[in-house]
């Protein structure tokens, strides 16, 4: 049992990070903090993919003499794409927050809600 828990420590980290990020997205009213939470949420999935790609006793996937077992490089390639998508999402979200701050003068969700209601 202990071995099972410790042996899968990377997956526990994935779940912990995922829930942390998700909780921040749900609970925070500050728009920048929400973006940080979303980033943590996405990064946890990157770790999940990298964990999947690991092959026991495998080395880096470069053909050299003396090694026959290699880790699977495909999840790493996929996650490079997902990282690019994540960067694009974050920059778009930050740009939106800049525009929201120009339009409302605040980046707190409850204050924005009040300003919309008072019109």
């Amino acid at each position, binding site marked *: 049992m202990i071995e099972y828990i410790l042996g899968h420590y990377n997956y526990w980290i994935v779940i912990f990070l995922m829930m942390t990020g*998700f909780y921040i*997205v749900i609970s925070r009213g500050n*728009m920048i903090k*929400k973006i940080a939470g*979303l980033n943590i*949420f*996405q990064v946890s*999935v990157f770790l*999940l*993919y990298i964990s*999947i790609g690991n092959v026991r006793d495998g080395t880096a996937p470069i053909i050299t003499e003396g090694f026959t077992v290699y880790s699977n490089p495909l*999840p790493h390639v*996929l996650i490079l*794409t*997902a990282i690019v*998508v994540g960067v*694009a*999402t974050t920059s*778009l*979200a930050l740009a*939106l*927050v800049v*525009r*929201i701050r120009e*339009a*409302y003068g605040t980046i707190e969700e409850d204050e*924005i809600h009040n300003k*919309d209601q008072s019109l």
Partner: protein
Amino acid sequence: MIETHLSLLLVVIPLIAAPIVAILPNGRLPWLVTLLVSLSCLVLAIMQLWNVADGSIISYELGGWAPPWGIEYRIDVINAFVALLVAGVAAVTLPYALLSVEKEIPTKQISLFYSAFLLCLSGLLGITQTGDIFNLFVFLEISSLSSYALISLGKQRKALTAAYQYLFMGTIGATFILIGIGLAYAVTGTLNMADLAARLPEVEATRTLQTAFIFLLIGVAIKLAVFPLHLWLPNAYAYAPSVITIFLAATATKVAAYVLIRIIFTVFGASLAFQEMHIHWLLLPLASIAVISASLVAIFQYNIKRMLAYSSVAQIGYILLGIGIASATGLTASLLHLFNHALMKAALFMALGAVLYQVGSVALQDMAGLGRRMPWTMAAFVAGGLSLIGVPLTVGFISKLYLILAAFEQGWWWLIVVVAIGSLLAIVYIWRIVETAYFKPTSHSNVTEAPLSLLLPLWLIVIANFYFGIDTSLTVSVSESAANMLLGGKP
């Protein structure tokens, strides 16, 4: 040359045109290029559907890498049908866009606007073309990111918060899809959809696969705005620029519905989804609640764009009902409604866009007396409304007919009641506008009919609403053969 690379060109032409349009000077040139691109996409999409209409499958290997190692574009009648819908809506929306965009978007952003529009088109077409599930995720993000940017260009400042909210919901949905793809890859070692479908039966009973399926299902459900994950949709549609509302309402949710159908029936297979996981007991109740509750909420909206957005949530419910029934008739109804709902929502949002162009508002009280001031626009709105309700001779009737037939085959009378209540509620919310526009004295004395370049695309779509409601040979035969292909095993 064109024939062999057809399926790739459909995605690559708008993708290459997007950065070119971005560096063009602001004015009418970016619009012209975008129009030409979307017209050529429409021609290619028609050719593509023509090629696969007999049930054949086009397999295109990107860069000559053989599947399942390389990315494969795999076109059958379902892909070609949805691609034609997307390209067709884009080609009809663009003539409409010229004046509407000049009025709603600041001049210095026009070329960037069309550039983002092309990226969105490219992403949506890419989703329909690809046979690789990770490639699908990438195209989903291309279309989503560009639509967040497009929605935020709306005139009111609420557009910004709507886009921000959509960005969060959309990204969480996309990340769920990514988790699902990762878990499915972990148990099968492949990303090609056809290859996944072939390898999944070996690992069917594993917990990992079931988890992967649920993550994919929920991720797509967020993109599709399935009740109760629809909260991003009403604001996003209500505050986006008119052209974007028309385009997204008619295509984005339809493409998400296509992805859902593809994942359930082609990749994971109906037996896992319905016999083992019993997802119809998840889909059918949620879809029924969506049909009734979203229609009820729509009745109490005073922003008419927002009202139609809630009506979209209800209409997505009908599509889900057909998927949940999971019979050949049910799937035919879903695919039909996918196409038909795009036609009616495009007509309704185009009419509203014309009202916004002339009156400057889409609030209910500002539409008083418009029936006499803008007779052609309001007549088109009424025609679209009739189609939404499902009056005979319109497309709405055809899809509801098939849905009721499918429910009848199963003996699920309660489902027929749901469809009937949904239609009655649609009469109520469409009637509110008819009453205001035709039976109340006008408050604007100087409002005139919308310009011809707005009216022509609008009426083209309205005529399509009636044409495909009377001559159903194309839509029904394509939907039926697509449904049989989805249920009859592998593509």
